[in-house]
């Protein structure tokens, strides 16, 4: 005898957990199905936790969530082969609670979140893969898992099964992932004693530093690198478009190895012991890659719906927010006794449009294609700005005016005067 639930959530990442938690808290009968051994066992992220998105779901999360360090300083580096030029923002304000951003280790954080979901009353089943959606005509009515007696039914199925949403593809809700719409990110966690981290990054207590990197480290591919400080470890990683990896034939681990050998990065990791190596796909196609996110009897949240703001390295907060908004839509329809039809679920899309999620996605909708077509931002410019700084900062008897002219000439020689204007215009348009 198959059971019927109010809602089935497929996947236990931040999107699925947020949806399941919100639904269960509202008293709905929720079943969450996770493929991995436990929530977090298959999830990979840098990872930065943005408090705001979680606060709207679990206001007092700081009391028991496993948080590593709160971020008080953000460095932005543009790297040339041997050098980098960059900016830093650090503020004592970021050290005043409640903190705005934290570094986290996802396998621990997700397990905490999953416990909250269980405590809220949702039924969580792990090590179980959803193979198919059960359809009644156009309407999704349940799921079929890989276990014996494996079918369960619900008024609504929330697809939170991540970037590679096989389920959505099988059901024809979106097409095959395009290599230009996904980034492949690899990262390592290196163990370092707390004291070493405090000394090396000029922090104390639970203060932490984030370094975002772009430039030559991606070897001409569209992508970025990052380094985050955890309590007793440092996370370092790099991600580039899958289509670029394919073209360049550079193995992701080789890219990361070279990045770690950069003279600006190597000393930060010195004497560290590598604890883990992970890789994951990130949907970076932006606004234009977002598929239909609702239909009769189903909703799509998080990475499955391509909700990632690649420009600001935000994803988990969009996942949590879309999960929450999906749940709130369902709770509202349920309360008003309305069926889970596409027509009624359009309210979810409307809520997304009104939130920062779609506004940000829309704002940067052209960034992916501009970056794809203008590789100079990842090759020429890092070298130009870094070399300009080098010229200016080297005191060698040459007068400053001559130095400035040399810098200008190098810029126009590389990009031409028109090219420079065009690049500036393209950037302005993309980020406007």
């Amino acid at each position, binding site marked *: 005898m198959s*059971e019927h639930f109010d809602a089935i959530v497929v996947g236990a990442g931040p999107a699925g957990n947020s949806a399941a938690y919100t639904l269960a808290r509202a008293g709905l009968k929720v*079943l969450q199905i996770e493929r991995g*051994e*436990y929530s977090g*066992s298959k999830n990979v992220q840098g990872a930065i936790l943005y408090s705001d998105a979680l606060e709207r779901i679990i206001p007092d999360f700081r009391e028991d969530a496993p948080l590593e360090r709160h971020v008080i300083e953000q460095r932005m580096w543009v790297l040339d082969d041997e050098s980098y030029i960059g900016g830093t923002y650090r503020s004592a304000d970021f050290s005043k609670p409640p903190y705005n951003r934290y570094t986290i*280790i996802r*396998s*621990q954080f997700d397990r905490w979140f999953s416990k909250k979901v269980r405590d809220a009353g949702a*039924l*969580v*089943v792990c090590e*179980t893969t959803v193979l198919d959606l059960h359809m009644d005509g156009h309407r999704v009515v349940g799921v079929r*898992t890989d*276990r*014996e*007696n*494996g*079918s*369960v039914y619900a008024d609504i199925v929330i697809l939170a099964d991540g970037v590679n949403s096989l389920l959505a593809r099988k059901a024809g809700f979106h097409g095959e992932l395009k290599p230009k719409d996904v980034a492949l990110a690899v990262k390592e966690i290196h*163990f370092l*004693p707390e004291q070493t981290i405090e000394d090396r990054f000029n922090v104390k207590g639970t203060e932490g530093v984030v370094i975002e990197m772009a430039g030559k480290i991606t070897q001409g591919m569209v992508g970025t690198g990052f380094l985050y400080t955890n309590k007793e470890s440092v996370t370092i990683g790099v991600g580039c478009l899958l289509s670029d990896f394919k073209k360049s034939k550079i193995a992701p681990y080789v890219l990361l190895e070279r990045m770690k050998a950069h003279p600006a990065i190597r000393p930060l990791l010195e004497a560290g*012991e590598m*604890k883990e190596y992970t890789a994951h796909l990130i949907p970076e196609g932006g606004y234009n890659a977002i598929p239909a996110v609702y239909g009769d009897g189903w909703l799509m949240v998080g990475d499955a719906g391509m909700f990632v703001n690649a420009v600001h390295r935000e994803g988990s907060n969009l996942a949590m927010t879309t999960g929450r908004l999906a749940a709130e839509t369902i709770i509202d329809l349920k309360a008003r006794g309305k069926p889970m039809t596409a027509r009624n679920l359009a309210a979810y899309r409307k809520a997304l449009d009104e939130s920062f999620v779609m506004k940000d996605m829309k704002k940067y909708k052209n960034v992916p294609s501009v970056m794809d077509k203008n590789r100079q931002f990842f090759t020429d410019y890092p070298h130009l700005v870094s070399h300009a700084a080098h010229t200016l900062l080297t005191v060698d008897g040459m007068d400053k005016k001559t130095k400035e002219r040399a810098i200008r000439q190098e810029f126009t020689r590389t990009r031409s005067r028109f090219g420079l204007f065009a690049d500036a215009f393209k950037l302005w348009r993309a980020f406007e």
Partner: protein
Amino acid sequence: MHILVCIKQVPDSAQIRVHPVTNTIMRQGVPAIVNPYDLYALEEALRLKDRYRARVTALCMGPPQAEAALRKALAFGADEAILLTDRAFAGADTLATSYALSAAIRQVHKGLPVDLVFAGKQTIDGDTAQVGPGIATRLDMQLLTYVSKIVSLDPAAREIVVHRRSEGGVQVLKTQLPALITVLEGINEMRFASLTDMLRAERHALALWSKDDAHIDDATKIGLKGSPTAVSKVFAPTPTNRRAEIIETQSGQPIDLAATLVAKLFSNRPDVALAINPSPTPDGSSL
């Protein structure tokens, strides 16, 4: 027939890191799993359940999070699950653990007599293989360790016949119930629970037992107080940088390979060479 299975939640040793400074195990972030050997014990009990309509109770001592291990046992088909959890049990060695578990089993027995107790051959975190035999001794049960096969069980005659792996070979042993059996890895293959069972396990109300529920009055027998084992030192062996060497000979014949190997070993350790053969030829071929 009532079968009790002892299971333990352990850190997944495949993912354990040792703290480079303090040499202690870094449990933070290491996933907890059911001791793999205990899963063989559970499956063996479930097979007897299927055959003899036995009732299976899973018992675990550990912190509240060990609940996950018991839910897994329930999903596979255990009928009941008891989590023996109390701060007073903290710091227990194998002696104190077997004391606490025996006390709990005695209480279970009062409700429904226990005919068989199953346990894994050892845990992957302690590797002592002492708790199972400890329980059998305390409860005065027949003890069968390192069992590789259950040949037959006669509930009417209350007799069980098993294969027990020993150093010299396999022993075929018959004994009377009640008995405690520790099983070897590979004795069976774990089943894949149905979705119905997964849902039942998630919903099942676990029995949480404190030391009082297990009727343990003497607090000096449990936890740290009841544990005479003292860890005097924890150290990591210094990693050696020696590299393996592959020996090749032109002929590839075993006899030539052996001769080359012996010559190499002797050249590294002339003292050994001299002790074995006071006047060897230079290439060691006198052997």
